[in-house]
């Protein structure tokens, strides 16, 4: 790697070190530690909302293009200031609280929901040595923290005292608990292979182009994990909790103004962090040739986010029982098979293991879909009468 590249690669790390050195000249040691935490924290606290704002713009642009229209293009060049205009609008909107609402919890829910969304950023390796806190239990931390998201959604739906909200909240609980299971199990092969829970060392285990997604179990795991992440952050085709054609707006029906914006923000930050984790686990994180590590990371992450937006532009929504059926009857058995396959792949080296693993996965996928009779499209015949 040439020096210019390595300079670019570690530009943010060096920037922080330099700042800390500067502080070290003037202040005692504990202040430096504190400053280090504060710098990381502030960066994450800024990064989250900014990413969310521009994700909304990106989504509207991409969906617009897929629907043969421009998307926002009035505020600023190419609509770049649209998120700011939206933010101003959100701030100035009236905050409506229903009469019968549980006021305290109604207020707390949108605040609480942002917290886990931001906390996940802590373990995301944005680039070489760019993990805010390289926890030894990184992946588990991510799973644990993202599972908390159910709670504020429940709070919001219950506090609104609205039947639509209530049904949305019920759906959220069912959906998120169900999809956590295959999601967690899909991660297991990765942990088995990299023999670590720390996100940074998982990325290190995918050195070069040995990304996990290039193995049969990795590909299957990635697809399952990605489907589950889409379901976890309630994005189409799994957006049942806020299904606007059925439940008006689901759990945030009764929210307006800034509170609604916070729900929105959490959703988009979740979309980002979950994509980032998927990249970390399966797509080699920041690993990649030629470009600086963080460029690779953001490219891959945004590719996944693009895929999420693409899903949104293409698919109808699942029904609640089908959603559950897919999690429990299709994805969960597949993850179990996948764990087995990962073991096989590990112990049978070379092409045999590779092909064997692929065959087992393909056969089990076909078998499971064939067993799931109700979800298989039927053959239909249409008579043409005179």
């Amino acid at each position, binding site marked *: 790697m040439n020096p210019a590249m390595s300079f670019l690669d570690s530009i943010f790390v060096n920037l922080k070190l330099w700042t800390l050195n500067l502080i070290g000249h003037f202040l005692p040691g504990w202040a430096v530690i504190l400053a280090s935490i504060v710098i990381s924290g502030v960066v994450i606290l800024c990064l989250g909302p900014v990413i969310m704002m521009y994700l909304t713009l990106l989504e509207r642009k991409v969906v617009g293009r897929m629907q*043969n229209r421009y998307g926002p293009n009035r505020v600023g060049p190419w609509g770049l200031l649209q998120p700011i205009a939206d933010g101003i609008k959100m701030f100035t909107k009236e905050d409506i609280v229903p009469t019968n609402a549980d006021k305290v919890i109604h207020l707390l829910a949108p605040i609480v929901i942002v917290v886990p969304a931001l906390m996940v950023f802590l373990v995301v390796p944005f680039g070489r040595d760019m993990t805010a806190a390289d926890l030894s239990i990184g992946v588990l931390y991510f799973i644990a923290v993202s599972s908390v998201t159910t709670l504020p959604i429940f709070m919001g739906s219950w506090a609104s005292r609205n039947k639509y909200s209530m049904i949305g909240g019920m759906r959220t609980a069912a959906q998120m608990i169900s999809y956590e299971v295959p999601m967690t199990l899909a991660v297991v092969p990765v942990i088995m292979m990299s023999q670590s829970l720390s996100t940074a060392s998982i990325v290190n285990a995918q050195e070069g182009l040995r990304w996990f997604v290039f193995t049969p179990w990795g590909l299957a795991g990635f697809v399952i994990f990605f489907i589950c992440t889409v379901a976890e952050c309630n994005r189409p085709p799994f957006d049942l909790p806020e299904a606007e054609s059925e439940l*008006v707006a689901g759990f945030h029906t009764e929210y307006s103004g800034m509170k609604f914006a916070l729900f929105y923000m959490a959703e988009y930050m979740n979309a980002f962090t979950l994509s980032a984790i998927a990249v970390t686990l399966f797509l080699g994180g920041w690993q990649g040739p030629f470009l600086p590590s963080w460029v690779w990371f953001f490219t891959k992450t945004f590719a996944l986010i693009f895929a999420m937006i693409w899903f949104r532009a293409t698919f109808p929504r699942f029904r609640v029982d089908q959603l559950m059926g897919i999690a429990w009857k299709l994805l969960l058995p597949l993850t179990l098979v996948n764990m087995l396959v990962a073991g096989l792949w590990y112990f049978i080296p070379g092409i045999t293991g590779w092909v064997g693993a692929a065959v087992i996965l393909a056969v089990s996928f076909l078998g499971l879909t064939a067993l799931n009779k109700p979800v298989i499209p039927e053959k*239909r015949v249409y008579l043409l*009468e005179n």
Partner: protein
Amino acid sequence: MSETILNEPQTLEINFGPQHPSTHGVFRMRAVLDGETIRGLKLVIGYLHRNHEQIAENLTYPGVFAYTDRLDYLNSMQNNFGYALAAEKLAGITVPERAEYIRVIMAELARIVNHLLLVGFLLNDLGAFFTPCLYAVRERERILDIFEDVSGSRMMCNYFRFGGVKNDLTENQLGEIRKVVSRLPAFLDEFEALLSKNEILCMRCQNVGGLPKDLAVNAGITGPMLRASGINYDIRKTDRYSIYDRFDFKVPLGQKGDVYDRYYVRILEMRESVKIVEQAIAGIPRGEFLNAKTLPLLRNPRLFKPAAGEAYGRIESPKGELGYYLVSDGTPQPWRYHVRAPSLINLTVLEEMCVGQKIADAIVILGSIDIVLGETDR
């Protein structure tokens, strides 16, 4: 919907509408839910009642035309057609050959418009984020451009007149129609690639909201909904009104009568409509577009005084059998005017189709019935 269901501990009564994103207007359903399953469902209609029939009885016969546009505001051409048929029958007016062709072209274009929009919004009800809807609207726009070019208005066309149509079709306009229609098969292929085999759509639609044959017949269901249940009943074929006997087209029939069949029958009907329009453009004769004898009647509507009597004109509107019943007492105003609105009558089986299904299904079933509140509530 009995009180016993309501009194069970786990049921929840919920109102869909009149302000709800997917009730297609100000329609209201009172649903009793058990978890996500619908145990009972009651329709509440009439929020858009505008006294259509009473208004029409206080207008001259030609003056009603503009009001029929507003019945099923998505395909005013078809509404005009039915009313024109009824009034022509009442007054014994003949329609010139060319006008008949123009009428058929317009009616079939309106059918395509309606079905495109229906499928688009059905997909919206299914939760697709506007993409199929906007693709459908993209094609619909081109047809609406033709409508504007021909009749002067995009949606409230008010194009038909007793004994013909308002304006003639120029060669240019015919070419334009041919161009638009020739795009449609390719578009429908793309549309089907997006939808018809999509597993999510199939899962959501197949075996949902099935309507058995006998119930469909007994409830008086007509239109694509009836044909999706497998009954061959198309007024274009049975009545052969206007000049529909001259065209070669088929009536697609479903088998199960579920939402998927209703969706797919409509796609196939659009393909048949394209065929009809192509044949009509090819065969359109020269001649007058409006019966010369009725022109003074239109210039002076009070002279249009059909002899006392009654007439029922019906057409196969995209939603079903659209009938107009007119009774004349010899004055310039209809003595009785009644509309048999397919939207309303097709809606009556909603409860039978929805009970036992999930909430999401109820929305989709409602979407697949294809109602327009302007016609339902009148």
